[in-house]
């Protein structure tokens, strides 16, 4: 599904290299987690994959189902099936949540040559998905993320994911700022979306999210590279011992 080879990335504005050769292959239906200390390049990886400005790929490649992602505009990556759940979902005053969702869903459908959904059909679809995430009609009416609590913002991200039905979902520290109940709700939302044709890359600092969303693989990222890959137990190891041992191992 997602194939990242020897990805090197620096900041466009300054001479700072952030990713120094990331290799990562995620198969269809798999759930991968990336953990790592602050500043290791986890969020940069997610932004580069989603197409945010400000980064320069100096080497390597990233493709989704064999299609080169790095040459595409963000909207085309989205239409191709990539989705990034933001660590800090953006507040957009003046744009209604529902309008935003419908515009996005229909733009993707149009880009894929599919028919756009009618307002009524779309409303029905969203209501059903929103209910399971405990997102009420009021939240759908409000401007995108404006005045939402931390938990509401994250649930709204998962709602977007549920509505847009991407095949490759990247979750950037979706657990940050969530209390235990909110995290459970978000994890349930994610688990409900798991399927043979849909893969997940979960970026997190803490093992606790992985109690709720069981990964197939756990990767440790440090200084712009993936330094270790193993099964779910690796996350437990990090939780118990921190990163120091792992970093020493590869040094």
């Amino acid at each position, binding site marked *: 599904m997602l194939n990242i080879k020897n990805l090197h990335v620096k900041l466009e504005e300054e001479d700072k290299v952030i990713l120094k050769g990331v290799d990562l292959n995620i198969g269809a239906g798999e759930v991968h987690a990336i953990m790592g200390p602050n500043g290791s390049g986890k969020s940069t990886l997610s932004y580069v994959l989603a197409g945010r400005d400000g980064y320069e790929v100096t080497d390597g490649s990233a493709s989704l189902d064999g299609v080169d992602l790095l040459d595409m505009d963000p*909207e085309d990556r989205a239409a191709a099936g990539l989705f990034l759940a933001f660590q800090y979902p953006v507040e*957009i005053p*003046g744009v209604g949540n529902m309008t935003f969702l419908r*515009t*996005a*869903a229909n*733009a993707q459908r149009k880009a894929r040559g599919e028919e756009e959904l009618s307002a009524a059909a779309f409303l029905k679809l969203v209501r059903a998905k929103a209910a399971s995430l405990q997102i009420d009609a009021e939240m759908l009416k409000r401007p995108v993320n404006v005045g939402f609590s931390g938990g509401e913002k994250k649930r709204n991200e998962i709602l977007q994911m549920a509505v847009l039905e991407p095949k490759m979902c990247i979750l950037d520290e979706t657990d940050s700022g969530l209390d235990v109940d909110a995290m459970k709700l978000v994890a349930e939302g994610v688990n409900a979306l798991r399927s043979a044709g849909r893969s997940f890359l979960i970026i997190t600092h803490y093992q606790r999210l992985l109690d709720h969303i069981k990964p197939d693989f756990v990767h440790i990222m440090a200084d712009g590279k993936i330094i270790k890959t193993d099964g779910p137990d690796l996350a437990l190891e990090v939780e118990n011992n921190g990163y120091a041992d792992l970093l020493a191992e590869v040094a």
Partner: protein
Amino acid sequence: MALPAHKIDGAAALLARYSAPDAPKWLANARKDAAQRLATMGAPHARDEYWRYTPPASLLGDVADVAQLDDKALFDAGDAHELVFVDGIFDAAQSTLRDDDALQIQTLNDASADIHWAADLFGALESAGQNPVPRPLAALNTARAGQGVLIRVSGAARPVVLRHKRRAANAEAMLHHVIKLDAGASLTLLEDGAAAARLNAVIEVDIADRAMFDHVRNQGRDHGRQLATHIFARLGTESRFKSFTLSLNGKLTRNEAVITLTGDNASAHIAGAAVGDGDFLHDDTIFITHDAEHCESRQVFKKVLRNGANGVFQGKILVKPGAQKTDGYQISQGLLLDDDSNFLAKPELEIYADDVVCSHGSTCGSVDDTALFYLTSRGVPRAEAQDLLVLAFLDEAIAEIGDDVLADRLRERLGGWLERHRG
């Protein structure tokens, strides 16, 4: 201080260029007084503090420049009174006046000799609004305008639509409207279209206790036009004034408003959305005076500027001694779609009461990259995402329109403009 000779000569030239039409005595007198006012204050000049950001020269030249004819209406007349002006001249044949016990209308060009309420009001609010800042083009208008409407409202009237149509590409028009709302009366006034290639318009509106005045104005979208407009409003106790102006394109637009809250618990909202591309200059110059207790005022002005377009905002809130519990709000924002455009803002607060809340803000910036990325990352094409964000930026102003249907119509027109001005 004596006026510089060029200002005196300028005023004389303006008065000489336009002639005062024949009129009943009260009107002729009011015009004479206004001509005297103009002679005393002089013509506007680029060196005047109030004209620093908007050079008045093109408003004062001998002939109007050509502006494309574009009469595309924004408002339906529905069951409203509809008064049609063609190049600023009232056209009775195209107009429709309906049965309405709550309202009397006369046109200025055939104002009667005994319309006492209008005689008391015509030029009065304009004259009062000349202090502390002179507004010479408004005085010129009172002195010379031969067209306009005189409306007296005594109850809940049907809306009035002033429909402006254009025939000659370089027509010049001067319109003067006087509106009096009696206690408890209400009126919605819709103005649709640019009226002429060059327009000088004045509205004087006197809003008695508990009366409500709603005003929505579409200034058209033809680019070459030059508009100088003034609204003078006086608000009584518990009365309400609401005015919104939409401007698309226009190489010079100067919209002034002078609003005075004279009775307790009155409320004045004035807002505007302007979008311009290239050779565009749009200026909102607002002066709100709080002269009573517990009054509220709101100024919300947003401008979207691209390809070197210029936006100007000069807004003042004056709170007079004793105007306690005033709640004043003012926001002016420019959204620059490129590095060539300019937004100049001069917000002013002058407060002589000690128990008031007045807030003001002015910002100037570009489209938020983070928001743009967020939208595109969800699959919204960049151009469409930008349009969404621009409309969102304008929405605080548009939301000031009380009528949702009307507001949606405006959003649609703005959306169309944005779509045509991409890239």
